[in-house]
């Protein structure tokens, strides 16, 4: 029996994380830290062209180099059909995924992999790669959505036909899909509006920017079975994708997760894994492959650049009556942008009766996009939150107030379909309004902006095991890589249930052969879904221990309860049995104490964040400085508040980078001009103030402790919050990101 408690011993506390010591001493082993005897090194030859037909590939000279052991090209991968990849976070078909791993007839972006070499040293592999002769027929690159959607645009894929059109298209195009959602009758509803604002917005492709480049070591034996070490956001999913791209059985490979040095969605798919595995298979030797930063930028997922047109109408009292949006997202070289999530998310914060939404997934000659923290949502947040700010200003309503008047709450039907259950948007808005930051004075050239954001969290397939050691300590096993403290939060929930000290629990991220299947570390799901499985497994163990005690005492099981780590007889007739005693005696009471639980939760609940941003704009240089920043986010229940705050702060700062500095810059030929951290300018410590956080807790009824996913929603509001603050400081609405000094100066000098 487990009573429902409201006061917790471990949940909501801030213990030192279990993997912390390894991480402050340099002992933690990340993707590139693994090496094994006899290891070869792999290097990839990448396309110098953004768009070209491959006429021929000649590897003979490269193969003749001493030390080169194998070379593979697209011809070595099986042709796959159009089945949709499942389990990954981005959208793709297997056919496209395979062609992204190694190009076939065409290269579709600068950096597209053409061949991979395994050699005795990395230097030999790199030099040999340069000796591979590729004959290209260079084609005109398609670099913007506008170019791609033009009638006479060069085609990336001559077999791509737009899906989702009212009548099936006759001609191929660069538009992969059209997504439409509507409700009510917006055309008629504009009449009811006292004010209508219609604007156009642009954002650039930005990279996830994880500090650890992709890295993998694969060792495949003569029998085709093997082991792969590497960092990813989910070794089960990476294994499935790798095996399917190679035409192998997933079960033939054991994937051992390394510590992962950041992912933010970008490590939910595969790049090097099938190359290393196939090269190992060919050579009979382990093969290590590590990307350079240059490769990470040119060949791994940024998120989409976008073009959006948004129109919203409100009555005098601020009530929104109609909203309409047209959005087009760059998918990169293959279909599969997160535009569908943009369509879902653009007005998800607001209860608007009449809505029309249209989204387009557009291919361009840029790297295939990959998931990036709340995929698709920050850009539409920039657009919608800017328009709402303008409505508020013109209607002379406080910006938080106008949001409160329209905020979704329990029972309201989301634009994308279901009714919201218990959610905390209103609470985040009220928290922001009442925060001292919101009324603090501002100086000249300073301005304050607010924005709210929505994100739909994910549940997903999950397995967890709790084992009790004979000394009464416990091991909590999950299969989701820990990117930001999830080991600690899982241990805390187990400690809470079992009633033992959190540091008597060792949380482990197990390999693919040691635990049941687990979906990705993504969708803000780990503390939520894995937490559910851990709590259920712990409760199963408690039940088992209580029934063992009942048998020992010869009483019915209902007469035993679990209190603070001990089985206790309800009547008080027997001295309690501690977990240690039960563990030590388990051989005599039925064997080892162990429980496994699997879940696949649906109806996960959504998360909201409201943020306040103060900026100062330097009118001479156009530089925007963030002066103060406050986040109010609904975490449902914070298991480990430090890491909840950390997620909020990290997401915000990525959003600030997106708003102010970060962008992929291409030359006219489609060659990326800033594939390094010097020119792709992510925020550094001296760019920022402290990021104040307020954890709002509106418990999620779907989770035993009320947890909501916290990882993603924090990145949704900053684009709008910063833009609104820049407007407040300058009187200029900048509708194109990033708001770099040049753009701010341009805006300041415009009439």
């Amino acid at each position: 029996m487990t009573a429902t408690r409201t006061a917790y011993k471990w949940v909501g506390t801030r213990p030192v994380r279990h993997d912390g010591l390894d991480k402050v001493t340099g002992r933690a082993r990340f993707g590139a830290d693994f090496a094994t005897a006899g290891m070869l090194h792999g290097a990839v030859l990448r396309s110098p062209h953004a768009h070209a037909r491959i006429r021929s590939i000649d590897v003979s000279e490269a193969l003749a180099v001493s030390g080169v052991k194998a070379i593979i090209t697209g011809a070595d991968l099986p042709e796959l059909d159009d089945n949709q990849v499942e389990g990954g976070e981005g959208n793709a078909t297997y056919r496209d995924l395979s062609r992204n791993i190694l190009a076939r007839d065409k290269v579709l972006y600068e950096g597209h992999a053409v061949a991979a070499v395994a050699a005795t040293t990395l230097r030999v592999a790199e030099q040999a790669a340069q000796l591979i002769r590729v004959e290209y027929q260079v084609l005109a690159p398609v670099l913007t959505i506008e170019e791609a959607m033009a009638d006479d645009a060069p085609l990336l894929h001559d077999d791509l036909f737009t899906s989702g059109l009212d009548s099936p298209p006759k001609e191929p195009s660069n538009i992969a899909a059209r997504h439409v959602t509507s409700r009510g009758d917006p055309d008629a509803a504009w009449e009811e509006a006292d004010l209508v604002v219609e604007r156009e917005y642009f954002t650039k492709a930005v990279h996830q920017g994880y500090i650890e480049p992709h890295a993998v070591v694969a060792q495949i034996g003569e029998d085709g079975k093997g082991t792969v070490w590497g960092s990813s956001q989910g070794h089960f999913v990476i294994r499935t994708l790798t095996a399917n791209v190679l035409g192998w059985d997933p079960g033939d490979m054991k994937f051992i997760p390394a510590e992962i040095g950041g992912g933010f969605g970008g490590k939910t798919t595969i790049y090097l894994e099938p190359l290393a595995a196939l090269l190992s298979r060919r050579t009979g030797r382990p093969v290590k492959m590590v990307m350079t930063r240059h490769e990470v930028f040119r060949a791994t997922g940024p998120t989409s650049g976008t073009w959006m047109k948004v129109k919203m109408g409100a009555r005098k009292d601020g009530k929104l009556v109609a909203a309409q949006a047209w959005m087009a997202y760059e998918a990169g070289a293959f279909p599969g942008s997160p535009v569908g999530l943009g369509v879902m998310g653009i007005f998800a914060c607001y209860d608007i009766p009449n809505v029309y939404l249209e989204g387009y997934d557009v291919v361009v000659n840029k790297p295939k996009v990959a998931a990036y923290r709340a995929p698709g949502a920050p850009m539409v947040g920039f657009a919608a939150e800017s328009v709402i700010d303008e409505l508020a200003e013109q209607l002379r309503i406080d910006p938080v107030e106008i949001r409160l008047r329209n905020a979704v709450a329990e029972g309201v039907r989301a634009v994308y379909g279901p009714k919201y259950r218990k959610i905390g948007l209103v609470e985040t808005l009220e928290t922001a309004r009442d925060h001292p930051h919101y009324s603090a004075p501002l100086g000249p050239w300073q301005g304050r902006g607010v924005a709210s954001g929505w994100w739909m969290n994910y549940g997903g397939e999950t397995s967890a095991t709790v084992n009790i050691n004979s000394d009464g300590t416990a091991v909590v096993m999950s299969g989701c890589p820990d990117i930001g403290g999830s080991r600690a939060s899982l241990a805390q929930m187990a400690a809470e249930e079992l009633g033992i000290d959190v540091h008597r629990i060792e949380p482990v991220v197990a390999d693919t052969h040691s635990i049941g299947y687990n979906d990705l570390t993504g969708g803000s799901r780990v503390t939520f879904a894995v937490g559910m499985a851990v709590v259920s497994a712990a409760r199963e163990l408690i039940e088992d221990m209580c029934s063992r005690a009942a048998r020992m005492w010869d009483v019915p099981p209902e007469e035993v309860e679990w209190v603070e780590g001990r089985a206790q007889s309800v009547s008080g007739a027997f001295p309690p049995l501690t977990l240690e005693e039960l563990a030590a005696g388990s051989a005599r009471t039925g064997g080892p104490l162990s429980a496994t639980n699997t879940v696949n939760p649906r109806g996960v609940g959504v998360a909201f964040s409201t943020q306040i941003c103060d900026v100062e704009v330097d009118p001479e240089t156009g530089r925007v400085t963030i002066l103060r920043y406050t986040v109010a986010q609904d975490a449902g229940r914070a298991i480990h508040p430090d890491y909840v705050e950390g997620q909020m702060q990290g997401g915000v700062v990525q959003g600030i980078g997106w708003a102010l500095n970060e962008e992929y810059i291409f030359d006219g030929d489609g060659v990326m001009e800033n594939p390094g951290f010097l020119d792709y300018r992510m925020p550094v410590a001296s760019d920022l103030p402290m990021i104040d956080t307020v954890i709002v807790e509106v418990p999620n009824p779907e989770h035993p402790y009320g947890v909501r996913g916290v990882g993603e929603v924090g990145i949704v509001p900053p684009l709008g919050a910063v833009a609104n603050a820049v407007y407040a400081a300058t009187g200029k609405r900048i509708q194109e990101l990033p708001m770099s000094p040049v753009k701010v100066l341009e805006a300041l000098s415009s009439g």
Partner: protein
Amino acid sequence: MSRTYVTCVVNGDPVDFLCHDYQTLLSALRDELGLTGTKEGCGTGDCGACSVILDGQLVCSCLVFAPEAEGRSIETIEGMAEGQHLHPLQESFLEGAAFQCGVCTPGFLIAAKALLDHNPTPTETEVRYGVAGNLCRCTGYDKIVRSVLDAAVRMREQDTRKETA
């Protein structure tokens, strides 16, 4: 191609290794000496993940050629704790949750140590500039900056205790 024989001091211990002239100190530490605590995030001096202290000076080990280490003294993350005792920075990073994925952490700890070695009483702004050569994509720097400031306090307290003892 012949390799260069290098002798130097790493974390107080004399070490030697063979390296190619094109190899970086980062590669020598990781690949020749097995000290993989120092990370490579960019290889171009832009992320600080490879920070080490070379003769008392903070450097990006990816920008130093391995043969340049000859005769010099290098401090890496592996030498930061003294035996069983963590450096105060390591303690405050642990207790202050100053990392999420942790891949930037060795570089930040080394950069922060270099800062505090030269300036034991930094302001928040000095800390922010002191670690501005290090990228962290996970934390937004808030808890890192707080932890460095906290470590500075701990170190001063330790010094006072030593002095009064």
